């Protein structure tokens, strides 16, 4: 279910037939919201730690994500992610973005459980369009 919600959120934010830049912006804006929601609860360091771990795990599938994880002084972490995403084709940028968010939410759920994860991240995700409510929602 989380996979669909994430894909839908990114797709809605990127708009129709997006280019890599639109995908990157959708991804970064989603991450910004994730951070806004979670930082008060688990702290910015907590968010950062899970984000770094997500990049690391994601780099097994998309090695270029590892580059985004390395330190580049003066460049904020989301800016680094944006830079990497715009260099890709829209398809793999979208897939990598979705994978990152999915990994992140799975890591969070492993720590604090699905119920609380859903509760905390609920405001981040785009609500389904009126006619496409997923059937297997639980």
């Amino acid at each position, binding site marked *: 279910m989380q996979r669909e919600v994430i894909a839908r959120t990114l797709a809605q934010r990127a708009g129709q037939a997006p280019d890599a830049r639109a995908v990157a912006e959708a991804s970064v804006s989603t991450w910004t919201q994730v951070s806004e929601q979670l930082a008060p609860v688990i*702290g910015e360091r907590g968010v950062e730690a899970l984000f770094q771990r997500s990049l690391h795990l994601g780099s097994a599938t998309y090695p270029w994500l590892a580059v985004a994880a390395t330190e580049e002084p003066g460049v904020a972490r989301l800016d680094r992610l944006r830079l990497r995403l715009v260099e890709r084709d829209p398809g793999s940028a979208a897939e990598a973005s979705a994978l990152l968010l999915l990994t992140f939410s799975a890591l969070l759920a492993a720590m604090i459980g699905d119920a609380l994860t859903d509760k905390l991240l609920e405001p981040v995700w785009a609500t389904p369009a009126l006619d496409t409510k997923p059937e297997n929602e639980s």
Partner: protein
Amino acid sequence: MNRKVDIRRLATGVPGLDEILGGGLPELSFNLIVGAPGSGKTTLAHQMMFALASAERPALYFNVLGEPPLKMLRYQQQFSFFDVAKINTVIRFVHLSDQVSASHFDQLLERITQEVEASSPGLVFVDSFRSLMLEAQRTSATSQQQFIQQLGIQLAGAQATTFLIGEYSSEGESSPVFAVADGLLVLEQSVRRNSMVRKLQVKKMRGQATSPGVHSFRITGDGISVFPSPVIAGDTGAARAGEPAPRSRERLAMGVARLDEMLGGGLPAGFSLLVAGPSGSGKTILATAFLAEGVRLGEPGVIVAFEQTPSRSRTHTIDDMVRAGCIGLINTRSLDLSIDEVVAQLLELIHHMKAKRVVIDSLSGFELAVAPTFREDFRESLFRMVAALSGLGVTVLMTSELEDRYTDLRFSPYGSAFLTDAIIVQRYIEIDSCLQRVLAVVKVRGSDHSKEIRRYEITEAGIVIGDPVLTYEGLLGGSPTQAAALATSAVNGDATHQGFDPAPGSADDGR
């Protein structure tokens, strides 16, 4: 004209705590929860927060260099009180540790104030204020006391009930800080030998009479449960008013033929009876008969068993009665109990069962089950327990192991004999190289009773009391000698090797 302020008391949602606090937590109070790491501070704070937070009274939880919040949420979630639905609706977390390291303390205080103003919470938690104060010392000239004072004033002005959580040992540290607070809850865990016991003390709660002393508590899947020490009725004039009517003359049947007669017509209702005897003398059987008789007469009972496993044959009747719902059973063998915990369970069960008869089998097992740290106070606690039970008007039978001694006579190793209203002593005596059992009613307060020593046997049907042993003396000492008047007709037996003083004709020839 001069109308006084009425302080509302909030129900904390922690079983037993409201009672200790003197009726709940005063609204808008400024409280400190202190204790060593692992003493249960955060759990207590969370439990109260989840119980108290509502749409009308939202909660704000500031996390300042306490435990990492991911871990806190991970572990606190294991408690049943943790209600995910309340998060971000009526409970909001504010993580401040990132700011603590970056900014100055004054800004931090400013930030807390802003957050509080922005969301007008009814409850504010700051975890932990210790780290906040250490930071305050480093980055500003404000003293710890000033800081707490400022925070207290600001939060009280914001109409919030406030809790500061911090790692402090209860003694010797910064008492001025504690002076500022309205309430001070101290948690500790004491380890003695191989047992760990948690204790809570309300050191201070302005405006109300709290229950003094240290109360034990336990943390389970449902969170914290506090076991208030039983309050002895008669402590204050007020408590007397609620006391049950003076003991009636009603007598309870013991369920053992001839024992009622020995007691002067049964055991007076509301009395506590001590049955003391050596191992195997039938104390549990007597206690079982007492309960069974109650069940037969429609008087429910409760047994606190520290002895045999319930499946053992002797206690089958207990088992049957428990299964039939006629008596309540507290069966425990854990070795880290507090007496107050057992008493709390017992009182609850008595209320639940509407019990008239209570058996504690045995005090010796009870003492063993109690955590070592409480053993020193065992007698005192026993006294409180007996007083609490007699306040309820139930009739209590306690058994106690009696060491076999043949040189002196003791009723109980605890000196608990004086606590009880009636005493039955069981003994082994040796006659004809055979162990025989005898019992005597030693005391029934304010009542006539038999002074006879009677033999009894334990049969499948239970205890069968026989006739008085008239032909011997010194039975309770274990070394009977035949009474002088009858000695002449006795045939001499070879009893010298048995180790008791062979008075002439000391062995019985026949029976």
